[in-house]
């Protein structure tokens, strides 16, 4: 594959323009409509057989009811989700024809495999898991096995898509073939550097946001049932189910900072421009928004969890999770949002995490977590979890702008501004080990003389590149 670096031929098919919004807006609109549904279905399919098994082992019908409820909802959203999913390649083929042709040239067999996994998933989920639920009440193990098969095939679909999606950010050494180079598939491309990290990050992200949101929705249902009949079986069930889902989602979150740290390291090595974009660059506002959502999740969600489940084990578990978060913050390159001092960033972040831990210990077992306000708080935390998840995906796509596949293909609607910004990250910041924020912090008197001096000191830039960098820096910094 090494010999195929770069594409030799361009494609003469017309690029179709879209009305009202630019193509990328429509593209993201369709994609972001599909992804939440797909991730929700996948998470439900993975958890439902597990819950059913727990219910079977414990002889606790609540777990079975929860499991069936998850699958019932997955069935409802499955068809619209699949229909949206079908629209995505259709839309890309027309609006990004060259990207699709080259990408499909590289990943033909994985796409076909994904289709087969999808078909198998439907077969197990619809015919052997959902339809047989009541009929196989006395063949519980067989029924759970069918659920596991559906979950495995659904997860295989996710594996394929994560692999192909990760390639777009970190293609590694595998070039995107030309439109006339039908490679069909490439193992190195599938096992690209960020694939395992994206896969695990999204897996735990799915569990976390889906369970938090489910817990939030069930909390609202609990509230409704409580109003109608406080002592009914339904009220008790929703009380139990909301708390159970919520705590699963809350603790699933703590895997995220650890996986995310490794993921960021890979991006830093394999896609340095993208890394800079998210760490202080043009995509950092999305990252900050995500961090705020996570902070809400930790503080409000954590408070609810320690109020509802006041045992020391739960609070110690939350403390351990928060300490892991702190460890990651310490190891992470300092974001220096508080000035130029890395120490200030570290001291303040340590203080914040320790304050949250202190707050959780103080809140343990206090107050009434069954009050209406807390049900709404659970729902808001669920939304915050979803928002953090969505922001993660959104920023992952935007940090490689104007590339569609990092370093391989540029999106057709690229602008000079985006191309120049990319050049500044790549040829000005990266060789000098600077961060985007340094462009404002260390603004010189004259960018022209600064760039000239850097070139004299050995920075490799062509005249054209130097001129583009100077123009960009003078206009924007």
């Amino acid at each position, binding site marked *: 594959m090494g010999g195929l670096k770069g594409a030799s031929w361009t494609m003469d098919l017309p690029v179709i323009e879209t009305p009202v919004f630019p193509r990328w807006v429509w593209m993201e609109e369709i994609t972001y409509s599909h992804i939440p549904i797909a991730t929700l279905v996948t998470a439900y399919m993975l958890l439902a057989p597990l819950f059913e098994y727990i219910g079977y082992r414990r002889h606790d019908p609540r777990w079975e009811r929860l499991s069936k409820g998850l699958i019932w909802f997955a069935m409802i959203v499955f068809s619209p989700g*699949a229909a949206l999913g079908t629209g995505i390649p259709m839309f890309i083929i027309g609006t990004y024809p060259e990207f699709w042709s080259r990408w499909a040239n590289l990943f033909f067999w994985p796409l076909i495999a994904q289709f087969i996994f999808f078909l198998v998933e439907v077969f197990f989920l619809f015919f052997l898991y959902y339809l047989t639920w009541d009929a196989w009440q006395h063949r519980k193990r067989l029924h759970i096995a069918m659920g596991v098969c559906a979950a495995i095939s659904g997860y295989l679909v996710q594996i394929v898509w994560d692999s192909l999606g990760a390639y777009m950010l970190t293609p590694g050494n595998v070039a995107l073939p030309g439109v006339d180079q039908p490679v069909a598939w490439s193992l190195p491309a599938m096992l690209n550097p960020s694939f395992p990290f994206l896969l695990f990050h999204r897996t735990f992200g799915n569990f976390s946001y889906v369970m938090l949101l489910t817990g939030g929705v069930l909390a609202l249902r609990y509230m409704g049932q409580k109003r109608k009949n406080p002592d009914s079986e339904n009220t008790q069930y929703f009380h139990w189910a909301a708390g159970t889902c919520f705590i699963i989602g809350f603790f699933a979150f703590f895997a995220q900072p650890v996986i995310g740290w490794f993921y960021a390291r890979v991006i830093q090595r394999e896609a340095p421009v993208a890394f800079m974009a998210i760490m202080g660059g043009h995509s950092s506002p999305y990252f900050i928004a995500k961090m705020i959502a996570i902070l809400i999740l930790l503080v409000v969600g954590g408070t609810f969890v320690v109020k509802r489940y006041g045992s020391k084990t739960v609070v110690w578990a939350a403390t351990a999770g928060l300490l892991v978060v702190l460890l990651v913050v310490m190891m992470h390159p300092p974001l220096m949002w508080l000035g130029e001092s890395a120490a200030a960033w570290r001291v303040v972040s340590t203080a914040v995490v320790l304050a949250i831990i202190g707050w959780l210990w103080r809140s343990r077992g206090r107050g009434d977590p069954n009050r209406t306000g807390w049900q709404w708080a659970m729902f808001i935390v669920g939304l915050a979890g979803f928002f953090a998840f969505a922001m993660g995906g959104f920023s992952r796509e935007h940090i490689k702008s104007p590339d569609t596949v990092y370093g391989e293909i540029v999106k057709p609607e690229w602008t000079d501004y985006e191309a120049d910004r990319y050049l500044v990250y790549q040829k000005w910041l990266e060789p000098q080990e600077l961060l985007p924020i340094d462009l404002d912090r260390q603004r010189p008197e004259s960018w022209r003389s600064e760039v000239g001096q850097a070139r004299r000191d050995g920075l490799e830039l062509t005249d054209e590149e130097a001129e583009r960098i100077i123009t960009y820096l003078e206009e924007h910094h």
Partner: protein
Amino acid sequence: MILAAGSNPFIQFPGGAKWSIGFLGIFHVAVGSLAIGFAFIVTVLQLVAYFRKDNRYDLLAKRVQLWHVCIYNIGTINAIGLVFALSGLYPQFWSQIFTQFFWTLIVEETLFLMLATTLTFHYFFWEDMWGHKKLHIFLGALMTPFFFLQFYIINGMGAYMLTPAFAEGKASLWSGTAGILGWDKLAFYNPSFLMLTLHRTAANFAYAGFVVAGVCGCLLYLAKRDKIKAWYETGGRLTFKVAFISFLTLPIIGFFYSWVLKYHAKEAYDNLMIGRGDVVAGGIDWWWTKQLVVAAMIGIGLVFGRKSAKAKREFAMPMAAVYVVSLLYLMFYVGMATQMTWMFLWGSLAAAIIAGLWASHLVNRHGGSGRAVFVTMGILSFLTVCLGGYVREASRPRFVNPSGDAEPGQNRIQHYSSVYHPAERPESIDMRMVRGEPPHAAEVPGRSPLLEIGPETAADLVSSRCISCHTLERIYSYKGTDWDRVVGRMEAYGTRMTNEEAGEIVEYLEGGELQRNTSIDVNDGPTSSE
């Protein structure tokens, strides 16, 4: 891993690319058609339940809708597989189709989403909407027009592939219009579009009805309680009736469909009617096979209908209408026999008689129950859908290399060897994809030159100007020689053409070129590529 090289410029698929697309396509059509028919059948059952105040039909409708939900997703996923397979195996064809039909496909996708949502609500909230039955029935009924809009769009594309008429890619270059960027009206409203749509509409209703009846038949075998048996028997009879009535309209529409093919896809028509090489597999002509199956279905339907009518069973068919249409079928078979071979007539008659006798035996054996007939018709209708879809695809001239020469095994166009490239494409959307000259630029196989668009000929003018109002058949069958007057009249009717173009058309028609071009010599090899 590079599977494609200069001498082997395609992604290879086990069994061949054609096989994989054919399988996925037919599978999708079989499932998609069933889904369309199911939506209709559910509405019929719900209406019968509502007006008769008989809850059994509503229960059956719910059961059918559950099957619908299950197969709908299989159809959806199958469509995704088809999109992926076409992208990799027939990349140029698939990309080119998108330049003409992108917006149609996006509208189709939107309808798809609306359908999925409606279907989900209709089935999963069946009990919740019990107090709003009219609204619930309306919601279910809404799916049929949605399906039809979606189906209409796909038929536009499918029909274009068989009868592109004058919209063969280069049309946009002549027109001087804004170019084709995702919507090609001329290609969409191609000559066989209407007939294909009508034919498939009736076929879908028939197919789904027979399949529902077939499933009722299977459940009749399994049912033990008399009440349940009676429920499936009546449900099966109702759907069988709907299906058979739809089925009887097929030869009439089919006749006009083949008439259009005769003038706009002569080679495909000959392939279908006479069977030349590529529609014969293993010595069996699939179109004939389909006709034999259809004849058998008529035989079964006639006998079963007659027995039901005599026994005054519920949902018996109006036999007078059945006899009239059966006579039409017979005339069709006689007509085909005169064109092809009398073996066709005798074979079809034999199939109808044998199947009729077999149906009579089955009904008697089951004490008047239609269970075995339902199952048999369900299977046969599935076969006809698969065979019908296959022969339509297989009838197109194939096995050509990029130069258009016949070459066994060669049925694909090399990746972008000659791409569709409207001259009017705005320069502003030219894509900057290459960063510098790659080191291997000299190593990759050379690329064929772009498609050369020749000047518009008189034949092209006739196609593009005349066909906007009527088919070429009108010109072909015109016996007069006063073309000057005819063309002048057409101008008066509103045909837009310059005086030079009108003169060119008159000269061409007076020369009799059109008539000569329309009668294709069967010894000619295929001349166009997919």
